[in-house]
């Protein structure tokens, strides 16, 4: 099968030793600098340049066990801040002044949380400095995430709790919430891109949403549906990008209006091999009537499963990412990387559409997997949706509709646009992220190319380009 993926144009050996655990990626590259942070079971965090694909720094010695997660703090100028979460139950905050010098400079920064006060005689202005350790979790920290504004940090752990920290002063963090409603290991936390709304995914098969009400954080929604561990949750970017053309402007407008009212959607992937898109049912505007006995202050959120992505993976899906341009990439235990695109749905096609490829592997699996899916849309009708048939031309013929969602109420559909098997050989792929391409064109321009970065259990970080 022809693949739109270029062969990995670079691969970075992370560590020559075989890994007991897995190297993982920071969820983000810093907005201002072309950096990539990876973390690993060798207890280190490595910072790579995305312009030269070389190792810049290695942070060692701070964590006593595997570093499972790291995240760049957003909205910073002149300085980069990285949060790391480790199986040693602690979260570390690290700082580095930004410099223009992004040449390869592999420097090892030894830090020991306990002995941090001794032996630090030399201080390199341009290197990573340990700033704070956040203690409180009782067992392995599984994920850390900064809020969009950067003032809040969410962490989650095998101790079944989600903590929210506020940076109240420089290197001074306060615990503002300890949320304990999950009944199992919490695998992932992610902040809404526009609101202070947090999503968490857990071994208890649920996704939970958290928000502050007056001065107490509480659970405002439970997204049930997955049949097994939810490994990852990701938010849609602020502005959606639906591919293709649609005839009948009012369909598009209606869709956009609804999207506007709901805000960014939420994506979840699971051990049950499904990827689901969740949408908020916007609250009815409460009318200011005299009959105001009914309390309107409830902060409960109403979320519904909007759709599922085509089923392609044959093993648990560990990681998903939603790109700036609206594409989704997924990876997992089967070693496959799959890219999906949302398109305006073509009229009168559905299952008969040859381009949809009902006979593909993906849809077979979908049916094998297929429980009855509830139609989660409202009662809008879907008249006059016409497109250009563009969906049939995707490079590998892997366009697949979402089984069970041929509802005429659905204006858009997700199709597979790229797929590669065995991305890390026989190894599982544990994490995937998008990054803007910075090694050519200086990384600017309206048509910025997007890279896919994966980390595998082989201890290798791979960077992929997408030719579609």
């Amino acid at each position, binding site marked *: 099968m022809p693949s739109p993926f270029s062969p990995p144009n670079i691969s970075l050996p992370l560590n020559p030793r075989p890994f*007991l*655990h*897995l190297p993982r990626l920071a969820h983000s590259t810093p907005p201002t600098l072309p950096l990539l942070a990876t973390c690993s079971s060798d207890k280190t965090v490595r910072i790579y340049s995305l312009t030269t694909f070389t190792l810049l720094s290695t942070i060692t010695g701070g964590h*006593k*066990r*595997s570093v*499972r997660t790291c995240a760049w703090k957003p909205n910073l100028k002149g300085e980069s801040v990285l949060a790391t979460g480790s*199986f040693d*139950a602690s979260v570390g905050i690290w700082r580095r002044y930004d410099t223009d010098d992004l040449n390869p400079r592999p420097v090892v920064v030894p830090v020991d949380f306990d002995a*941090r*006060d001794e032996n*630090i005689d030399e*201080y390199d*202005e341009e290197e990573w*400095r*340990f*700033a*704070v350790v956040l*203690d*409180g979790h*009782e*067992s*392995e920290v*599984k994920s850390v995430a900064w809020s969009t504004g950067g003032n809040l940090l969410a962490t989650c*752990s*095998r*101790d*079944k*709790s989600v903590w929210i920290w506020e940076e109240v*002063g*420089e*290197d*001074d*963090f*306060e*615990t*503002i*919430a*300890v949320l*304990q409603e999950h*009944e*199992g*290991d919490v*695998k992932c936390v992610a902040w809404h891109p526009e609101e202070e709304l947090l999503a968490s995914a857990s*071994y208890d098969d649920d996704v939970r949403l958290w928000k502050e009400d007056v*001065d*107490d954080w509480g659970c405002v929604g439970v997204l049930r549906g997955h049949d097994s*561990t939810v490994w990852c949750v990701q938010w849609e970017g602020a502005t959606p990008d639906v591919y293709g053309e649609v005839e009948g402007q009012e369909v598009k407008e209606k869709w956009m209006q609804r999207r506007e009212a709901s805000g960014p959607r939420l994506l979840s992937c699971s*051990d049950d091999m499904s990827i689901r898109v969740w949408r908020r049912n916007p609250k009815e505007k409460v009318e200011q009537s005299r009959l105001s006995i009914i309390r309107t202050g409830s902060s409960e959120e109403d979320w519904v499963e909007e759709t599922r992505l085509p089923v392609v993976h044959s093993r648990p899906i560990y990681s998903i990412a939603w790109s700036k341009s609206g594409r989704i990439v997924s990876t997992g235990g089967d070693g496959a990387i799959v890219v999906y695109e949302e398109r305006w749905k073509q009229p009168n096609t559905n299952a008969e559409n040859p381009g949809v490829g009902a006979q593909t592997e993906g849809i077979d699996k979908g049916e094998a997997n297929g429980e009855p899916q509830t139609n989660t849309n409202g009662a809008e009708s879907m008249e006059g949706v016409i497109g250009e048939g563009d969906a049939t031309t995707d490079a590998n013929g892997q366009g697949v509709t979402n089984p069970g969602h041929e509802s005429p109420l659905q204006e858009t559909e997700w199709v597979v646009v790229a797929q590669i098997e065995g991305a890390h050989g026989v190894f599982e792929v*544990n994490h995937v992220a998008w990054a803007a391409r910075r090694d050519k064109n200086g990384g600017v321009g309206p048509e910025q190319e997007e890279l896919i970065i994966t980390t595998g259990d082989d201890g290798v970080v791979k960077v992929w380009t997408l030719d579609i």
Partner: protein
Amino acid sequence: MSAILSADDLNDFISPGVACIKPVETLPKQAPEEINAYEVTTEDKIHRENAPPAQISLTDCLACSGCVTSAEAVLVSLQSHSEVLHALDSQPSIALSYLANNHGAQGQDGKLFVASVSPQVRASLAATYGVSETRAGWMIDQLLGGPEGLASGGKHGNGFTWIVDTNAMREANLVLGAEEVAESMSRDTQSAPSDDGASITTPKKPILSSACPGWICYAEKTHPHVLPHLSRLKSPQALTGTLLKTVLSQRLNIRPDQIWHVSLMPCFDKKLEASREELTDIYWRPSSPNSPTQTVRDVDCVITARELIMLADTRGIDFPNLPRRPLSSQIPFPDSTISAFLSTKKHRPQASEAGTSGGYLHHILQTQLFLHPDSTLTSTRGRNADVVEYTITSSTSPTPIFKAARYYGFRNIQNLVRKLKPVKKSRLPGGRGQASKAGGGMDYTYVEVMACPGGCTNGGGQIKVDDVALKPETAMNQKEWLNRVDEAYYSMTESEGEDEEGDSKMADDPLDNEAGDLVNRISPSYVKGILDHWASSTGIDLQKLVTTSYRKVESDIGRVGGAENERVAELAGKLGGGW
């Protein structure tokens, strides 16, 4: 923390721990149970007797969802409403005639059943049954000691001989707490206490309240650095237990293990407190060659408000319809001075500023205001309603005389313990080393710490709004329910006194004393007098009676043999779907 340790879902709140907590404590042995040769021993009973120290194998470890809490689970299950019934049925009461005369009950078999009741439990029941706090107290008295209560059934028709209010000893705690703070203020800091938490008489500043057992357990396990700050005073529950066991065993000439003391508390963690070795008779009993080797707890069993209802239900007693009046006849407590102190009702009203957790901080603030007549108190709400900062300033000086705070709830405790972390110099490399404000910075003299958000009326053992069948039109959420319980807690008023029958003793109310030193309606000199009387009449040093100690609970992780532990932790981590 507190809300969690219900026997129903023990392991869900405190998470599975990475490491086993090493010393699974051996319980003080239970009093030997009378073996009835004809009674079939149930499995249930075998389990109840001396729980052996747990042996933890790797298999256990992998099968366990919360090894840190398993030891606690055992302790909690050993104290339940069925344990109360079991104790009542175990032996006949010591005949009342012996108690009434002055010769004591030496050589008598049988047990003496006594109970203590916390005001939060009364408030919870008051809100549930729509009665005043005083009446709720009477209902409890009727259940525990009245003819229509527990004594109406059971194998021996046993009820509780004395039922006391923990408020009395809470006031003793308040007076001693204010003294402890005054001492710490006058003491120079040159004699820095050692870090092990034990054998120190005065805690480091800021002194942290120690009445909340959830907080104490958490601090001992997770934050040993705060132990030197903990108030050395026993909680009202523990003080009441020590008082009852010492005075009754001495006056009645019976062994401490013949006294069976149940305490009614708002909180499950109080059961853990009752199981502490530090709160047993070996800490106060004079050593004598023929003294029994067993230790006897000062509080044998703790049950919560909800468990009290279950207790009544199990015996088929219609709790809501018990008489709402005081017990008609009570055998006088065998020490008239202490009896007067325990039954004093007049000084019970609680100011709402005192909070619902005993008012430790409030009393200390009132004491400071009393000592500095020109001063004023200001309070500042923190980030949420469970953090409040108090400052006392004199009109003559801009620098505060006294600063204190209230920290309730787990999340706020996190910030407190972080601020108390010893800060080392040059925490950060380079010139920005002093930027860290996270550690060491606290100018409070006293902090009242409670594990439950909202304090003790919100304890894990209290009756919840969902437990109460309310009419739809009166539907309320837990928050509103809590307000109602709080209201009941504050409603302990003197006005209720008029229908307190037979309280002619009011004439010699200790509060009518001439000392003129009333602080927060409490006379420190009177309370001190009672405490001195307690010490001298029992011949036990007062410090032994009223103070306790804390110790770091060791975790094995990261110690010698750490590799193996790490491996166990890695394996345990596979639960929950691995990484």
